[in-house]
């Protein structure tokens, strides 16, 4: 990776702007060479709109399931069966493959106390890792960047494959990077003139800092995006492209700890079956392609992929062959170093409901804590605000 280091120095915004001095916050920057083997990273996939978890992972032997869902309930012919009790929606063929390979852990009944059924609010809760009664302005990955652990203080340490940045990626003093195309992103930034001589004006200095570090990161990402070009065929569209970008950056050994992307459209109040099918195909084919891409390039061992949605949906179907906003949901963990591949914990309890909604059994912040502690090797309590006991999936 020596070549890329030279490249980076030569092309970095700071090096090229001759008159500019390098501000202190960029001193002692981390290794400029690529991420070595053993450099652990996570990919987070957000299913926006509230995916119906009960028609994703299906308790096909449970009569109550069919009682609550006489029209949209999935029969065994609509499923890939995983166990004697559990099947997954048969549009999740890619996910079935990952399950068979032992690369998938399904965590059921994930949620938080006093669940909120608003998309906006519940998404903020997941993204800021807050309780449902507190309002935080920083995202959990942003706080990870803020914690300034070695290798988590540059914008490119957390990349969102999108045009704009999610709250999850914004910290108090650091933010991640949002881009969909490394070349386009670099173009948007390269003409800008930045001055760094306003030390007395804290807010202006902050703007300059963010601009300069974004510029530098854009160069960094652009350089890395050229090293490996994937030949795999990802699903067409924004989501497939975002996974391809992520794969290319990982395989090019970009020093990025967190990648973030989302797929939207899961708000299935009406005509759920067909719509969820199309989304699932896109999701699971994309995910499988990503995993194979990483595996063939020896990068799967160092990558953990988590999929979540802001809430699950109501147990009982509605009158429009859809479902309304609900509560607890399943979370998927994909990787090759799973401690307990398969179905991690019990399926949702359809007997003891809370006003027709599922009761959560696993707090999502325990999942975050697991990833932070056991995978990223950092103290999660500083980032999550308090202690959450890690689970055993890695």
């Amino acid at each position, binding site marked *: 990776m020596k070549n890329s280091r030279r490249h980076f120095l030569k092309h970095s915004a700071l090096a090229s702007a001759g008159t500019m001095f390098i501000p202190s916050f960029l001193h002692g920057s981390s290794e400029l060479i690529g991420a070595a083997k053993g450099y652990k990273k996570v990919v987070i996939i957000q299913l926006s*709109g509230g995916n119906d978890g009960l028609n994703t992972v299906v308790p096909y032997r449970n009569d109550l399931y069919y009682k609550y869902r006489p029209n949209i309930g999935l029969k065994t012919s609509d499923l890939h069966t995983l166990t004697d009790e559990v099947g997954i929606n048969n549009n999740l063929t890619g996910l079935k493959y990952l399950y068979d390979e032992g690369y998938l852990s399904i965590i059921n009944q994930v949620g938080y106390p006093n669940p909120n059924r608003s998309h*906006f609010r519940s998404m903020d809760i997941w993204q800021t890792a807050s309780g449902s009664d507190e309002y935080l302005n920083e995202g959990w990955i942003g706080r990870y960047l803020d914690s300034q652990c070695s290798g988590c203080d540059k914008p490119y340490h957390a990349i969102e494959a999108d045009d704009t940045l999610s709250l999850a990626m914004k910290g108090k*003093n650091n933010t*991640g990077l949002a881009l969909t195309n490394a070349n386009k992103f670099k173009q948007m930034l390269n003409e800008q003139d930045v001055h760094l001589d*306003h030390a007395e004006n804290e807010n202006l200095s902050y703007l*300059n800092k963010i601009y300069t570090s974004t510029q530098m990161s854009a160069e960094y990402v652009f350089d890395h995006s050229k090293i490996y070009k994937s030949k795999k065929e990802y699903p067409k569209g924004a989501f497939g492209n975002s996974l391809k970008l992520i794969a290319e950056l990982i395989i090019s050994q970009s020093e990025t700890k967190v990648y973030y992307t989302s797929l939207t459209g899961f708000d299935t109040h009406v005509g759920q079956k067909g719509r969820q099918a199309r989304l699932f195909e896109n999701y699971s084919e994309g995910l499988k392609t990503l995993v194979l891409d990483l595996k063939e390039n020896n990068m799967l061992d160092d990558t953990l992929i988590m999929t979540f949605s802001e809430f699950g949906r109501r147990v009982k179907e509605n009158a429009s062959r859809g479902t309304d906003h609900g509560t607890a949901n399943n979370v998927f963990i994909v990787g090759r170093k799973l401690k307990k591949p398969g179905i991690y914990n019990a399926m949702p309890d359809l007997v003891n409901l809370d006003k027709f909604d599922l009761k959560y059994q696993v707090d999502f912040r325990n999942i975050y804590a697991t990833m932070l502690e056991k995978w990223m090797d950092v103290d999660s309590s500083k980032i999550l605000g308090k202690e959450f006991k890690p689970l055993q999936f890695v």
Partner: protein
Amino acid sequence: MKLDQKEVQHLYWRAGFGGTYKEITKYTGKSHQDVVNDLSKKAANYKPLKLAVPIKPGEVKMKDLSVDERKEFQKTNRTNIRQLNFDWIQLMVNDEGALREKMAVFWHNHFACMSGQSVFTINYLNSIRKHALGSFRDMLFAISKEPAMLQYLNNQQNRKKSPNENFAREVMELFTLGRDNYTEKDIKEAARAFTGWGFENTGEFVFREKQHDDESKTIFGKTDNFNGDDVLNMLLENKQTAHYLTQKIYAYLVNDQLDEKQIQSLSKTFYESDYNIQTLLEDIFLSKWFYKSENIGTRIKSPIDLLVGIQKSFHVKLNEADPAIYVQTVLGQKLLYPPNVSGWDEGKSWIDSSTIIVRSKLTQMLLLSGAIDILPKQSGDDFELFKNAKKLRKINSQLDVNAFKNEFASIKNDVELMHYMLQIDTPKTMNISISKEDKGSLFRTIAYYSQLMEYQMC
């Protein structure tokens, strides 16, 4: 005290959304009393905003509607609220009473609230605009009884037998005292005092006596059978409320680095005036310290400051609601759709690696009616999808060429323009003259300064 150009601009940015070049030139050299009086006078008149599609409150009963009619009704409400957002923004651009709207944005953030009912939304917004420069006491009582707020904070569900604490908590934490100035018991007991506060479908506040808990409560150490009004009065009686509000207003209008001594003194007068907002504002704008260099150019423009400021300064107008909402979404401040009850976090929170790019290009985009190659986040809510996201990227705007040329006719070179556009001087000037012969020179110079980080400050 005579104001120089930078000081006039400072006042215009903080008490509004910036002034036009001619306004600034006109007031340069005038005393600060004269300029402040003038701004106050222009803002004195309150004119309510109206809904684009009038809806008679209570006329439509959801349960009487078919599924399709219900959808149609919800769509009308959404269109109304989006249009209201746009109308409000245009009012900020066009109306001379900018100080009222500037403060209304502050109060909208303070009393952050949203509703799917456009009638509730407009009543709430007009209530905030009406009281924006008046008495905070009146505003607190009015907003606490607005259906939009009671609905947003679930007070309709706050009943004698099953109290809902949401409203009682936020009224203390966010609207009056600020965090850590009350106990959990105060909230529990106050929630009981607010039981029975609700609203009718017609958009009227209603006190439902049957649902009200008339037993005695102990709040802030006092015991009586308090009602909701009593609690609001107790909150206003507490000097901490004046202090908390003054801190927030100081951060909004002066500096996010708080000067506790100045705040103490302001807050005392504010309290003694029985929460007269105009008094507090004049106290700030007529002080000497407000114009000190450490307060000038230190504020990061909010997305609204930026969006309104550009339109105002350069005589360019957005043509319709969609692009205006699109810009607000991308920049992270969509009026009438606050992220949650605590509103938007000001200052550095506006800034991240993507908003900073859009910000630095926004002026050019508006002037050129250009496109921003960035798609806003989709919330996932089916009703909120940007169905024509591609179309929205084109910022449909109209430049009034004559007004634009006329405005800057007296400008001779880029340094003069820089002094108008930037509150913080930049060392990187271009040393070019601006002339009528070189038609592009004015445009290029504006484009150049507008992309600098200094332009993001006010």
